[in-house]
């Protein structure tokens, strides 16, 4: 999807996913490129159900699931990192489950 977008890879280094209801989460842009993440809108041939984040949900399998924003409205490419909703409330900024990066300082 981001291949359709023109951006300067030296400037856009982070992505902010923003959702219906005001939720946000931040990711390094490199973590959503190259097939590492996708926007899911169907499951087993059916439209993705609202309780699972439908109509469109960011899916980032290699990070903790608060990074996989439900009801996503858009992705904003930015040049600097800024904490999203949970990240600004003490959750780990990156969220690698293999390192158990759940909270700031983990």
């Amino acid at each position: 999807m981001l291949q359709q977008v023109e951006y300067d890879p030296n400037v856009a280094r982070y992505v902010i996913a923003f959702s219906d209801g005001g939720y946000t989460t931040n990711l390094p842009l490199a973590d959503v490129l190259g097939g590492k993440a996708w926007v899911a809108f169907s499951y087993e041939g059916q439209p993705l159900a609202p309780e699972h984040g439908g109509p469109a949900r960011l899916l980032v399998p290699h990070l903790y699931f608060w990074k996989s924003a439900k009801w996503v409205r858009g992705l904003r490419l930015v040049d600097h990192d800024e904490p999203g909703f949970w990240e600004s409330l003490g959750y780990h900024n990156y969220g690698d489950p293999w390192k158990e990066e759940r909270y700031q300082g983990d």
Partner: protein
Amino acid sequence: MERRTLPGRLTWQRGEVVATEQETARAQSITLALPTWMGHRAGQHVDVRLTAEDGYQAERSYSIASPPEEQPRVTLTVERLDDGEVSPYLTDELRVGDKLELRGPIGGYFVWEASMGGPLLLVAGGSGIVPLMAMLRHRAAVGSTVATRLLYSSRSYADIIYRDELERLDEADQMLEVVHTLTRVQPPGWTDYHRRIDTDMLREVAWPSDQHPLMYICGPTPFVETAAASLVTLGHEPARIKTERFGPTGEA
């Protein structure tokens, strides 16, 4: 001159039971229609009074589980205490259509409204979830986006009151996180906590103290003491920690 007493919150009134729901083996929800209910705030409780044929009366306090938005219906969730005078009647004998005498709402301290903001930390032990559930239901009813975490301690999976509804709320809201701990028995594959709450658990689940969360703890006395002391140890301001305890002394 005619003298009239205006109905107040400490006036006894009779409500009609319009629904009952078994929440767990020991906990039952009772929904009452209250024609002269003045409204309540999430976290408040009522006094219930039973009168025997010989005139003997027994009174107990029960937390309101329903949000203000559902008035004039009010739901109480009652845990059965085997040697109790009142709760076995409420959980075993009361039927839809019966009348129940109560007064309230009572208590203005252990209360949360969406306008008070957050972030919000709720810590429940056993049936201490009831007034906190009123807060979560109120939060959902008004569409609040206040960042909220619930840490809920139960003995076993089957003892989790409102289990399905909590799961639905958690799934439907990215600004709400529900974390369970099961202190005695855990089902296979259980990945949440499996011990009594302690400072380490609260360090992980509670907000950093510099976020200045609003904190509400409800449960049996030893549970509340442990949770409150841990939060103070972690640097939280005592003035932002509100507690509600109930007896008899038990454990979650």
